[in-house]
């Protein structure tokens, strides 16, 4: 039975060297978050009569946790969504309820107080001027708030183009890696490092857009493909300003991608801008309700000049647009008196306007609230949105951390474990070396024995 002892030993040395190489690579990448621990798969060479004749290195493989990787990508998308959404709505909240500053309810209250004072001194020019100024301040505050919220949404949406460009670059890199991985696999080489790179890029794309990938490297956003095999499709923007949208260019046209279908940073920006614009619309509607209620009462009253039917506020035709003080209002036609005969000392119409502060049911959407309560409800509701966004971001971050731990327990590098392996493989290498030496000694002995 011929047995090649030398070849057996050398195969062991090859195996130990491959294992040492994998171990050294693992140690070198111990702090690389995108690295998956590698291991060498060995196979015993079949011999005769059950006697092994050495070992073969079959492949170098990376540890994998595909389910957890997808879960982490989903959590990363949620985290990015929460962060960008939170940033937008926090900026918006700073305008609605400036920390330590005056909010809209204070200008509303000041206006009603000014009309209460006017009711007591309806003919006093300074009090009349103060009431007009207070109404103007309220209108100006609503206009400024509306402009700031619009600007906040616009500013955030201007980031979309850059994020889309970044996503396209990543998609192209993934497509390129898919091509390389296919080539390496075709030549039976190890694609472990390339797969790690691809996983990392899919994770980045998930953070940006909420994309998900599969084992073949295909990437989709809510069913719309971004990477298909070795081809990357192009994501692009449509429209501009607050009307900006998304589409994916396909070979035979374009496929619209609803902004509500996008996740990650991009989705957070779209959702945050939408929430901000909704808040703006709610506040403009609130201001319109205030202005309409006051206009109705004001128009029924009489100014010092005997005029009646005047509107205190100009209400724009477009729904959701801010109100303004009627520029035609003067201290003469400001309607403080309820009757023409009551001019100038009757302040009951001014009192009727002041009484709107405590009136309920002025707008069906306020469901029995006073105007002040309605504003508080809008502000608190938005506060809940901001609060929930922060909680969601914290929760997503904790999820990412927890899932990373789980994945790390499968794919990560434990230095203690690798150092143990290092000792083991060094010993194996040394032992195989001694086996080769023993085979060599035997050969020499036999050669000397048969040499005449």
């Amino acid at each position: 039975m011929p047995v090649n002892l030398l070849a057996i030993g050398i195969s062991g040395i090859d195996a130990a060297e491959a294992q040492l190489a994998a171990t050294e690579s693992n140690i070198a990448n111990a702090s690389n978050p995108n690295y998956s621990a590698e291991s060498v798969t060995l196979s015993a060479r079949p011999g005769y009569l059950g006697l092994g004749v050495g070992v073969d290195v079959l492949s170098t493989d990376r540890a994998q946790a595909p389910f957890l990787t997808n879960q982490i990508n989903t959590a990363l998308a949620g985290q990015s969504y929460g962060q960008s959404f939170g940033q937008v709505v926090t900026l918006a909240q700073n305008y609605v309820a400036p920390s330590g500053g005056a909010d809209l309810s204070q200008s509303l209250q000041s206006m009603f107080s000014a009309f209460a004072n006017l009711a007591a001194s309806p003919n006093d020019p300074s009090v009349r001027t103060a009431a007009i100024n207070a109404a103007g301040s309220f209108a100006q505050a609503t206009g400024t708030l509306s402009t700031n919220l619009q600007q906040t949404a616009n500013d955030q949406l201007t980031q979309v183009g850059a994020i889309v460009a970044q996503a396209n670059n990543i998609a192209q890199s993934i497509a390129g890696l898919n091509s390389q991985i296919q080539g390496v696999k075709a030549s039976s080489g190890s694609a472990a490092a390339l797969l790690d790179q691809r996983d990392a890029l899919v994770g980045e794309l998930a953070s940006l857009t909420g994309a998900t990938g599969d084992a073949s490297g295909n990437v989709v956003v809510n069913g719309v493909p971004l990477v298909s095999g070795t081809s990357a499709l192009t994501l692009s923007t449509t429209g501009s300003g607050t009307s900006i949208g998304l589409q994916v260019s396909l070979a035979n046209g374009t496929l619209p991608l609803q902004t509500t279908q996008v996740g990650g940073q991009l989705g957070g920006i779209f959702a945050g801008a939408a929430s901000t614009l909704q808040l703006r619309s709610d506040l403009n509607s609130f201001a319109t309700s205030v202005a309409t209620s006051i206009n109705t009462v004001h128009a029924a009253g009489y100014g010092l000049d005997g005029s009646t039917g005047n509107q205190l506020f100009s209400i724009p035709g477009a729904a959701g647009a801010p109100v303004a003080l009627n520029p035609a209002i003067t201290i003469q036609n400001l309607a403080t008196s309820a009757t023409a005969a009551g001019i100038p000392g009757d302040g009951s119409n001014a009192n009727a306007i002041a009484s709107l502060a405590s009136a309920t049911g002025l707008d069906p959407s306020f469901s029995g609230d006073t105007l002040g309560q309605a504003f508080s409800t809008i502000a608190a509701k938005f506060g809940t949105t901001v609060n929930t966004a922060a909680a969601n971001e914290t929760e997503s971050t904790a999820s990412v951390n927890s899932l990373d731990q789980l994945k790390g327990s499968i794919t990560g590098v434990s230095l203690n474990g690798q150092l143990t392996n290092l000792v083991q493989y060094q010993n194996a290498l040394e032992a195989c070396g001694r086996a080769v030496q023993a085979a060599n000694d035997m050969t020499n002995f036999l050669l000397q024995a048969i040499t005449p």
Partner: protein
Amino acid sequence: MSVPDITLFNNLAFSLDNTTGLLQTLEQQMGTGKRVNQPSDDPAAYAQSELLTQQQAVVTNDVSMASSIQNRMNSIDGALAATGDALNTAIQDATEGANGTLTASQMAALGNAVGGLLSQVIGAANFQYSGSYVFGGNQVQAPPYDPTGNYLGDTGTNAAHLSDGTAIQLTFNGQAVFGNPTTGVIGDLTALQTALNSGNQAGVAATLNQLQADIASIAQVRSQVGAASNLAAAEVNNGNNNIVNLTSSISAATNLDVVKAAAQLQELNLQEQALVSVGTDLGRIPLINVLA
């Protein structure tokens, strides 16, 4: 379960981030003394404090108005008191003129004096507060009486309305208070003056009862004004108490519990120190030392 080294460091960083974030929030709250600075800090508490703040602004304005009304009523009372004094003097003059001991010229002199009292009363009826006439009804921009005592105002009145529903009358129908050349205070003084000037002792005597009734009538108006002044004073007091209570309620809803926060701060500082200590130990991998 294998625990990769990078996981250990990531966990440490995550925990330190959380602790530092909590510390930052707590330090911000301690810096402002407020737990609720924005709606997202505690939406329910924010909504509550918003309503309380709005209520406080309303009450503050009420206090300011009530205080002004109190001053106004005190001034009006001064004008009415002067009218009462004039009527008392007129009664003395009427009593003197009616006792039959005066000559016609002496009575005429008294008539002149009563004419002065009449001017004084008309002046009181034309009393202004902050540039507005008080006794002209709604006609507050022009004197409600001409020099002969004709009423030029109307019967309207204006009132201040406070947020609790209290209404306090600010202007008066002057004719109901002072009358005109034929009725009321002015009418009776005019009649007295005429009787004195014409030496009509019976006519003079006839005004005495009317003048007494006028004094009672003015006293009644003064009591109304006094009640309004007292009401305004009560509104000022109640309002100030309410402001204190509302301030306290706003504080309770939004302010930081400093003692609790201080304990929390200490706990977080300890936690941060412990984490840093863990980080120091993480840097030492035992097996490397053994192999070395």
